[in-house]
């Protein structure tokens, strides 16, 4: 379970968001500039809230009153960025293995096979990110995050940088991911159609505030 109750001032803009989510996929929905990425960065620990708390499964990751701020690298929260951010100097295999190495996890060939099969990236293992298409890159980024065995996976507009055709290529993988990998996800998007397909719960964000929260019906035009 993810619990977020934070405020953060970013120049003229401010975020005041409170929500609790039990869903498999929490959709963070809102127009660009609504503060979705900042909120996700706070969950990841990349951004520090001015005030408030963030907790997963009862464990406090941030609590400004108690002076708690668990650094990003100790959070075990996976993050798939809009711009893949694969390490350009490592091949796909090394990129995929990075999180396992950093967390000193035992080698798990079964899981590796499951993830590479799920994402269809087995044939890319020896390539460098520079030689991949946008869609392939995003799939590898997804695999890289999963193989670090996170307890929560953040996806910040993972389809945002892709054209229509590529989106259609990736979306089924995300659906499979939701149904097969047992990792709760926070999915950020401004695309209502994507949200309907993926999210089990929606947090609607408007100008830094949570304007509604609930099932997918929150998205229906009113």
């Amino acid at each position, binding site marked *: 379970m993810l619990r977020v109750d934070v405020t953060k001032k970013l120049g003229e803009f401010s975020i005041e968001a409170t929500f609790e989510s039990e869903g498999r996929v929490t959709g963070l929905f809102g127009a660009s500039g609504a503060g979705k990425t900042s909120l996700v960065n706070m969950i990841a620990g990349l951004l520090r809230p001015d005030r408030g708390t963030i907790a997963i499964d009862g464990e406090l990751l941030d609590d400004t009153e108690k002076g708690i701020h668990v650094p990003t*690298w100790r959070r075990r929260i996976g*993050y798939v960025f809009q711009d893949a951010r694969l*390490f350009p100097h490592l091949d796909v295999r090394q990129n995929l293995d*990075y999180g396992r190495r*950093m967390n000193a996890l035992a080698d798990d060939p079964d899981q590796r096979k499951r993830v590479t099969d799920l994402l269809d990236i087995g044939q890319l293992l020896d390539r460098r990110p*520079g030689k991949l298409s946008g869609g392939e890159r995003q799939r590898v980024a997804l695999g890289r995050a999963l193989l*670090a065995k996170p307890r929560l996976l953040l996806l910040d507009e993972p389809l945002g940088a892709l054209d229509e055709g590529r989106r259609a290529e990736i979306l089924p993988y995300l659906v499979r991911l939701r149904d097969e990998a047992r990792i709760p996800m926070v999915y950020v998007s401004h695309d209502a159609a994507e949200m309907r397909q993926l999210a089990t719960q929606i947090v609607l964000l408007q100008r830094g505030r949570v304007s509604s929260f609930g099932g997918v019906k929150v998205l229906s035009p009113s």
Partner: protein
Amino acid sequence: MFDITPTEWTAILLSIRVATVATLVATPLGIALAFLLARRDFWGKSLVDALVHLPLVLPPVVTGYLLLLAFGRRGPIGAFLADHLGIVFAFRWTGAALSCGVMSFPLLVRPIRLSIEAVDRKLEQAAETLGAAPWRVFFNVTLPLALPGVLAGMVLGFAKAIGEFGATITFVSNIPGETQTISSAIYSLIQTPDGDAAALRLVVVSAIIAIAALIGAEMFARRATQRLHGN
């Protein structure tokens, strides 16, 4: 004309040794400092930046004299090192390496700093989200991606070190076999009658070393850049 005498060989090999040691010792320090200057804000940062660049703008003879005052046998640092660690710089080749290292330091740091500044911080964040502690982010992501700049800095530093003259001769004098580098040997030869041919030979040798270093650096940098941007 191209019979290099043993004395000249001594000067050539000494120069290479001095410049190599200076570069190898200065590089880790330079990387650490470049990282601080590129990525951290701290009190006195502009002062540190100015100090690093000082050898570039001070007359070399001034830098050499300051080194002599500080690291000479009776200098505060020199006396301490000699008494407690047995390290002596004054009139030794190690002193030549020290002065070459100091003089080349600004040239070494600058490209490294620029290349660290150019590393995409988003990649470092990605590494953090995958569980990499800050020092591992540095060694796994920042440093490999800044490698072309590190190599460029090392080569520039080496080239500067091998040609350094003013500070070195002021600090450790011009003792054949101990502190007489190519530059000071050329200087001595020009002062002696009939030294022209020998001086010219050393001029050619130093030109060859400099050009070889530049070509080597170019090759390294190209290979490193290729490595970074896919096979």
